[in-house]
């Protein structure tokens, strides 16, 4: 009995952790390249969930087409936001942070304006169970985790292997030196912002059939994403992976064995402790 509960918790932790990573990785990418902390990042995740509601639940498109369309659509939209609201404040953490507070209101209330106050249910994308030994898991959760893992891997390869990825790493190290080498900072910054927001939108598409699409879901997600990147260290992708899985395990086991408010307080208190002993995060390097 205990063994099966344990395995269930582990699978749930991997699933939810993978999706947290998908949101947090964009946030950490934007931070390291543009030097801004985008508190409105969770709203792009929320936009992804509503894109899923419109495209998949209302227009009955194929689920994978929905994922790709939502990623591209939200990514392009985020480029517009970056150009209008964030580019003037690149490198000014405080101003950019306050702009993102305003954007949270605009997105959240705008979505409520369009879709009304009620949470939107999205039908399950995949029915059926995956049987492993004598345990069975919901297929959609496994598929969500696998898609999350594949996208994370692709992003890692993009950053490590391609010319544009190398440009991103150069900007993250030293923006002025990168500009002197002939790297177009504006385009690379926009690209990083678009990729980050697109990935957040994919997380929204993957999670909305499991839960639902609601206007306030971004606020919950952004706090978790921040916890992850604080745990891992702002701007560190391996730290983000470890932080995401840690938070997934923490929540999955906590929600199984304790009640939710206790876990919330314990999580935030744990982050405080981490920051007391390692102010730069577990994998930060400053």
């Amino acid at each position, binding site marked *: 009995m205990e063994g099966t509960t344990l395995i269930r918790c582990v699978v749930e932790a991997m699933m939810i952790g993978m999706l947290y990573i998908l949101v947090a990785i964009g946030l950490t990418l934007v931070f390291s390249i543009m030097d801004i902390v985008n508190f409105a990042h969770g709203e792009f995740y929320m936009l992804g969930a509503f894109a899923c509601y419109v495209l998949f639940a209302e227009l009955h498109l194929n689920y994978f087409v929905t994922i790709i369309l939502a990623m591209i659509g939200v990514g392009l939209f985020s480029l517009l936001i970056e150009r209008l609201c964030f580019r003037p404040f690149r490198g000014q953490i405080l101003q950019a942070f306050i702009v993102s507070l*305003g*954007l949270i209101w605009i997105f959240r209330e*705008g979505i409520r304006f369009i879709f009304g106050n009620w949470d939107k249910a999205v039908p399950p994308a995949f029915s059926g169970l995956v049987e492993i030994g004598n345990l069975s898991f919901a297929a959609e959760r496994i598929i969500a985790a696998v898609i999350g893992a594949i996208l994370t891997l692709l992003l890692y390869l993009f950053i490590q292997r391609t010319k544009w990825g190398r440009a991103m790493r150069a900007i993250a190290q030293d923006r002025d030196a990168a500009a002197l080498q002939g790297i177009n900072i504006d385009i690379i910054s926009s690209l990083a912002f678009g990729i980050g927001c697109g990935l957040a939108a994919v997380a929204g598409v993957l999670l909305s059939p499991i839960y639902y699409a609601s206007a306030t879901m971004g606020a919950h997600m952004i*706090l978790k994403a921040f916890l992850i990147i604080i745990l891992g260290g*702002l701007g560190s992708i391996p730290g983000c992976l470890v932080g995401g899985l840690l938070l997934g395990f923490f929540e999955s086991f906590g929600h199984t064995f304790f009640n939710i*408010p206790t876990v919330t*307080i314990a999580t*935030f208190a744990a982050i*405080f402790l981490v920051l007391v002993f390692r102010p730069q995060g577990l994998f930060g390097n400053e």
Partner: protein
Amino acid sequence: MSRDSFIRSPFIVGLILVGPLLPSILSIYWVHVFAIMFIKIILAVALRQMLLTGMLNLACAAFMAIGAYFTAALLTYGGISFWLVMPFAGITCSFLGLALGFPLFRMKGAYFFIGTVCFAIIVETFFSNFFLEVFGGVPGFTPIAKPQIKILGLDIKFISKISYYYLSYFVMICCLLAMYRLENSRFGQYWKAIRDADRLIESVGVDLFKHKMFNFAICCFISGLCGSVYAPFIGIITPHDFSLDFVFLIVMYVVVGGSQKFWGPVIGVTALSFLGELFRGLGQYELFSYGIVLVAALLFLPNGLIGVLERAACYARLATNELYRISQSRKTL
């Protein structure tokens, strides 16, 4: 008269003189609006004081919540005099702030903002889910005992809106005076220096940590005081009243008013409270318009409303000087 004091002096005199007279001409609705506005002004100026050191303290509403619940619990269950509870609420908050400051001030820049957000979430979750029979949980803490004052044989109970108007007005004037003096003292100089060049000022022997802590403790004290006035005035406090949205609102007031100048947040709160009364009809889309106001203010008004006013005052003065000179030259001709 410098450009700064040109706009400031009539403004301050007006604020102090007109304040006590307003309730005689206003309806009870507007008295309520003004009392809330005074509390928001205190909070906004305290938030700006933290901004002087370059730190955005998003936990100030959390400290206000602690002050409010502290006051409500002691007034209602303890039956202790409000005039004792109010300063104690502030002192409790500042001690809590000092304890929190040890981990918080190890963080820099963005980490600090997020650290304060973490604390705000902890406080909100705590009051929503724990000690339900004491704090009332999500539905809120009500009823709250009304404060009383016994002076010169008179026994005044704070029930009417007008009494709270004067209470919050009095607290606001005291807090503003204290913060204004502090900002223009040696400490204010240190705080501004910390924002501009923390390494440099550390190298000349200023204890950064001590001054940041001092600033934070004062901000917490004043936030606690705000909560203490707010709780018996409103009569019901819920954890949601002090949610992140409320802090974002205060941040918006500071930014729109202008965070560079002491009177910026005051102007911001005043202007946006009147605007908010206009937005009332929009109902729940009020926040949407606030979002647009905030983003637009950051993009187009880097010095805030007070910057616009100062520039207008400056142009007006230049124009009058010019007219005077022209009239003089006509005479000599």
